[in-house]
């Protein structure tokens, strides 16, 4: 698929999107959403390969909520000068769900920037793996890369494997990554309880808040919000 130069497009992918290749021509803007909330007996796999030309701008959001075994592979290559990507992945696992998410972002053009964020909640016996890589090549001078992976673990049986990788081949760049895995913060819980909110409710509130910041400026926010609320109510 080609996103023509100077155009602005919105693309919503369904959970049977399969393998897709996209090329963003110079100065095109693409807003891409992939939403997966299928039945929990399904297996899903989506692979995206995206190339960005000069000045292209990609804002993509992946919501991984459903399915029994889900796989998401996103490869983004920022080849054109000044191209940018903001990628956000949200996952919420319960029961026996498993999510494998692989995100590879390669910056080869000058002055490119990549912001890769992932936030997830794992409850029940669910498991997730987020393999995030940012590779800044030697030609990508003055580029910036940021990789953030944060997981809230709600159950002692949940499992998380986070591998945030930075591969930096030149020095005139700024690259950071941060990852955290925690359970619900005791002090936050106490604060909510001190306002009469019962523990179970408080956990739901905090869990919802944990994810809220990630998608608050996305269109279809209400939809997402509702789906997440539904999953939270099942906790």
């Amino acid at each position, binding site marked *: 698929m080609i996103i023509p130069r100077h155009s602005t497009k919105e693309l919503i992918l369904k959970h049977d999107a399969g393998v897709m290749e996209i090329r963003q021509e110079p100065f095109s803007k693409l807003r891409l959403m992939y939403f997966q909330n299928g039945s929990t007996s399904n297996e899903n796999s989506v692979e995206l390969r995206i190339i960005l030309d000069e000045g292209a701008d990609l804002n993509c959001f992946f919501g991984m909520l459903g399915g029994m075994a889900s796989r998401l592979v996103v490869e983004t290559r920022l080849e054109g000068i000044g191209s940018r990507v903001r990628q956000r992945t949200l996952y919420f696992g319960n029961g026996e769900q498993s999510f494998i998410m692989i995100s590879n972002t390669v910056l080869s053009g000058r002055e490119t920037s990549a912001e890769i964020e992932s936030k997830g909640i794992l409850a029940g016996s669910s498991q997730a793996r987020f393999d995030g890589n940012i590779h800044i090549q030697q030609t990508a001078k003055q580029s910036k890369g940021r990789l953030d992976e944060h997981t809230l673990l709600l159950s*002692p049986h949940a*499992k998380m494997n*986070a*591998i945030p990788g930075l591969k930096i081949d030149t020095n005139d760049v700024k690259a*950071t990554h941060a990852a*955290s895995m925690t359970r619900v913060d005791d002090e936050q819980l106490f604060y909510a309880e001190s306002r009469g909110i019962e523990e179970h409710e408080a956990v739901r509130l905090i869990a919802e808040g944990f994810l809220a910041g990630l998608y608050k400026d996305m269109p279809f926010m209400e939809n997402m919000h509702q789906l997440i609320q539904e999953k939270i109510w099942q906790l």
Partner: protein
Amino acid sequence: MTATLNYIKDLNRETLDKANSTHYMKGARKGLSRELVEYISKEKNEPRWMLEHRLKSLEVFLKKPMPSFGPDLSGLDFDDIIYYAKPGEVTNAHSWDQVPEDIKRTFERLGIPEAERKYLAGAGAQYESKNVYHRLKEKWSKVNVIFEDMDTALQLYPELVQQYFMKCVTMHDHKFAALHGAVWSGGTFIYIPAGVNVNQPLQAYFRMNASSMGQFEHTLIIVEKGAQGNYIEGCSAAKYETPSIHAGLVEIFVKEDARFRYSSVENWSRNTYNLNTKRAIVEKNGVMEWIGGNMGSGCTMLYPCSVLRGEGSSADHLGIAFANTNQIQDTGAKVIHVAPNTTSKVVMKSLSKNGGKAVYRGLLNILKGAKGAKSQIKCDALILDDHSVSDTVPDMKIAENDVSIGHEASVGKISEEQLFYAMSRGLCEDEATALIVNGFIEPIVKAMPLEYAVEMNRLIELEMESAGAVG
């Protein structure tokens, strides 16, 4: 100042490598075989169980594959290596006069103690070192502390050694552990009895041994309940004799309420593959500290590992890696949280320059049952020019939810604002850079034993100056 700068410029790794070939291994065999292993054991007059252990290790080594990750090890030709040489077969003891001037001056510049210089130059002045060693030995034996070279320890305390030898890192762990199990020779044995606090650092160069070539040294350290100790391994100057592969093993047993710190600065010369394995098992409320600097060798794979097996145990890993021209420093830390309420902290700083490649490879494994685990990992990389490279590959496997895990990393060049600020106060660019680099590594150098902290700083200065302009 200029005279110093000049000879530093002239000093390069080749000088060290050249000297290597002149006296190396006349008559000693190359290649690995069952006969060689039996020969080694017989030469050392080892108990039967050790011979069996060696042979079993050899079997495992031959079967195991090479590691599937990390730098390219295809240059390693196992048949082209001398695994063992009798004392005398290696003319370790050439005189101090024969050592090239620039080597001597490097040692001087680095402020290395006289006795150690000669050891490092292979001038075999065990004389001085032997005296120092004997004095300290008397002091320790009064409190039943054992600090002996490994071969001797096996002879004097066979049951004690057998209880622990290769139980922390076993021959099955990986190919180089198996190799080590087959051909190990020399090394350090330290035993600190319960409740004893050895507050003076035990240093490797105290127990020098002419027969050891240093490639397959085995260090076994046992710290009994409530005891404390501190060991400094390695040298901070380029070792004059350069074996091509270094597959040593360090095993440390930190028992309940005990505390141990292991400091090392590894600085082998260019064509060495530094494939050491270091691991500590920490019991209840025990504390293990790893402080390391990795400067030399062509290719290093070094990931000190702490296994937090006892409740409330903790580990601190602090390290610096410096990758210069044609060097790959593939280092990091492995921490495995097994028991509840364990804590770990990892701070790693790396510098890469002139095409060097610094890689941080870490593993954090929180096993099921390790409730209340807390871990903070920080790895920062400074890339000093546009053709050097840095990778950060942390792997976090979490199987418990009652945990608090944080990881942060940043990679980049020296901040322009910092540089500008320093220069606006009158420092030239080189000075400003050096200042900032020092600040970058300061938290780690601060934790090093004083003599080594000074040497570390100078070593970095040396590396920064070598091969031309800074940055």
